């Protein structure tokens, strides 16, 4: 164990891998071209689906930043999606539709929730951290259920999408698609920058060996809390987009199963590689839909696939693509 940790850090600390821009660039290019399918057939439905997948990719990148980089396995990240979504929904009911205001509220609310729950949760480690984040996620879920004024457990239908200085620029399927893609790229690049920065290196150092980081003068707590808040804000952004896309928000956004799905996305793609989070989210959302088209019992196929990935593809699918870097 000890040797492995030293070896990993020796390999990783000097220079984070910046070289591998090829795969994400390819992914983003493919995504950008998705609307072209519309030329071949009536694929508005597919466009909506890919938009949804990209939204989950944003949340998965957020989770990967906490989970992969910081070793903080949050089992309550769906709460941020819900909070981002509910902020948009509640402002819509109040008649506020300006994108800047709504976005600020969504992200602000997620940040506050992350700060409050993170400052308590980060006192614990390992499995206990998993469980305490689950607890906070469930609390948020039940609060959403009890919001009778905003639909209770039925959820809340938004009357319209957000507007930019009073104009409806995000209403169209294509406009919204490219908005989400642009935000996905932005989130990805920021997460990458964060991961490669000194801040990211401290996080990874604390994940590998907390005692060593403390010995060289770093208290990991503020670093972890910051990472947790950033991660929560990214998931909150995804929640905002999800509410805007479906013009609907409900407690179902924040069930523990949804939090589990996010972890599965990150794990499937490959932990601590932000590319993997995108890949995992796309595969989970798209495979679910495609397999469901083949057979209603698609889980019988998808379940064993996950087992095989866990057993044989250490480091997730991205590990297979890149060849084994982590043994």
């Amino acid at each position, binding site marked *: 164990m000890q040797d492995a940790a030293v070896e990993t850090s020796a390999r990783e600390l000097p220079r984070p891998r910046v070289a591998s821009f090829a795969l994400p660039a390819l992914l983003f290019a493919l995504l950008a071209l998705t609307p072209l399918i519309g030329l071949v057939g009536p694929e508005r439905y597919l466009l909506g689906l890919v938009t949804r997948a990209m939204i989950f990719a944003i949340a998965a990148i957020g989770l990967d930043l906490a989970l992969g980089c910081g070793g903080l*396995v949050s089992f309550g990240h769906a709460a941020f999606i819900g909070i981002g979504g509910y902020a948009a929904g509640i402002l819509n009911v109040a008649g506020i539709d300006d994108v800047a205001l709504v976005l600020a509220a969504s992200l602000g609310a997620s940040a506050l929730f992350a700060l409050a729950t993170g400052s*308590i949760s980060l*006192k*614990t*480690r*390992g*499995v*206990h951290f998993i*469980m*305490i984040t*689950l*607890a*906070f996620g*469930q*609390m948020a879920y*039940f*609060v959403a*259920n*009890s919001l*009778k004024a905003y639909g209770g457990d039925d959820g809340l239908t938004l009357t319209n999408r957000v507007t930019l200085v009073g104009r409806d620029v995000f209403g169209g399927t294509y406009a919204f698609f490219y908005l989400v893609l642009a935000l996905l790229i932005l989130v990805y690049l920021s997460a990458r920058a964060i991961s490669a920065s000194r801040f990211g290196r401290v996080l990874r150092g604390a994940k590998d060996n907390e005692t060593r980081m403390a010995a060289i003068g770093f208290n990991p707590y503020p670093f972890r809390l910051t990472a947790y808040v950033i991660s929560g804000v990214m998931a909150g952004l995804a929640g905002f987009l999800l509410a805007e896309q479906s013009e609907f928000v409900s407690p179902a956004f924040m069930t*523990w*199963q949804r939090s*589990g799905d996010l*972890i*599965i996305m990150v*794990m*499937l793609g490959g*932990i601590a590689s932000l590319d993997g989070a995108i890949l995992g989210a796309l595969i989970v959302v798209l495979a679910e839909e495609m397999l469901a088209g083949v057979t209603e*019992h*698609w*889980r*019988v196929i*998808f*379940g*064993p*696939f*996950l*087992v095989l*990935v*866990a*057993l044989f593809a*250490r480091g997730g699918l991205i590990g297979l693509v890149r060849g084994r870097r982590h043994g």
Partner: protein
Amino acid sequence: MSTALLAVQTLNGLQLGVLLFLIAAGLTLVFGVMDFINLAHGVQYMLGAYFAVTFYGVTGSFLLALLLSLAAAMALGLLLEIVIFRHLYGRDHLDQVLATFGIILFVEEGVRMIFGPTSLSLPMPEMLSGAIELMPRLLYPIYRLAIIAAGIGVAILLYVLVNHTRVGMLVRAGASNAPMVSALGVDIGRLFMIIFGFGAMLAGFAGVMVAPILSVEPNMGDNLLILAFVVIVIGGIGSVRGAFIAALLVGLVDTLGRSFASDILRTVLSSSAANQAGPALASMLTYVLMAAVLFFRPAGLFPVRR
């Protein structure tokens, strides 16, 4: 809140508590001794109920169905251990989460394919149907009392097994330091198998017991699994005694909270506010309890590992 209602709800709370204990006991040992997160444990509870329905259909006897279901649940647990789980010991927790999550998807959908999506039910055994008068004008179903009795019986059996047998000694040693037990020459692989099969059987037992009173459906284990994790974290991972006390605590807090939260809130809030906040607070109580326990005693009420 009348005394009769309080008594009934306390009994209901105990009943939920012993069910949680049956599930949590296996979970906490598997987690504590093998350091293995088994999300598929809830599936084993669900399968117990389906086995009971199937075997009852074949044999027509509740007792025979119970015995056959226990054997089947244990066999299935052992099969999973041999084919999949043993390759994941010592791996990252998240690999285990991914694999066991895949198993949940597969088994639940498989059950849905075989038995159909509608829920099934098991008739209550003749001998245990009916109700008895606990207090004047307070009737309580005998079967529910039987569940409580069975749960407490299992708890006593486990106490004896864990504290007064050789295997139990190894289990306790394994929970506090598994590599050391292995280094002392104990066949740790076999110990793991025994614990796994036994845990699966207990979860299956819980499934059989609830089959007559709950609807038997493919996702019946999902929410109970999460509650069982809450229980083992509150109790202290690896501690059977902790699991027992935490299970009763969670069962009582959850049941009594749901019945009385609105009433209690009404003493400090307006009636409408209490009616709105009550159910939310009641659902939250177990999680508030867990968060508080983790905050003040991060290793749970009965910590095992140092």
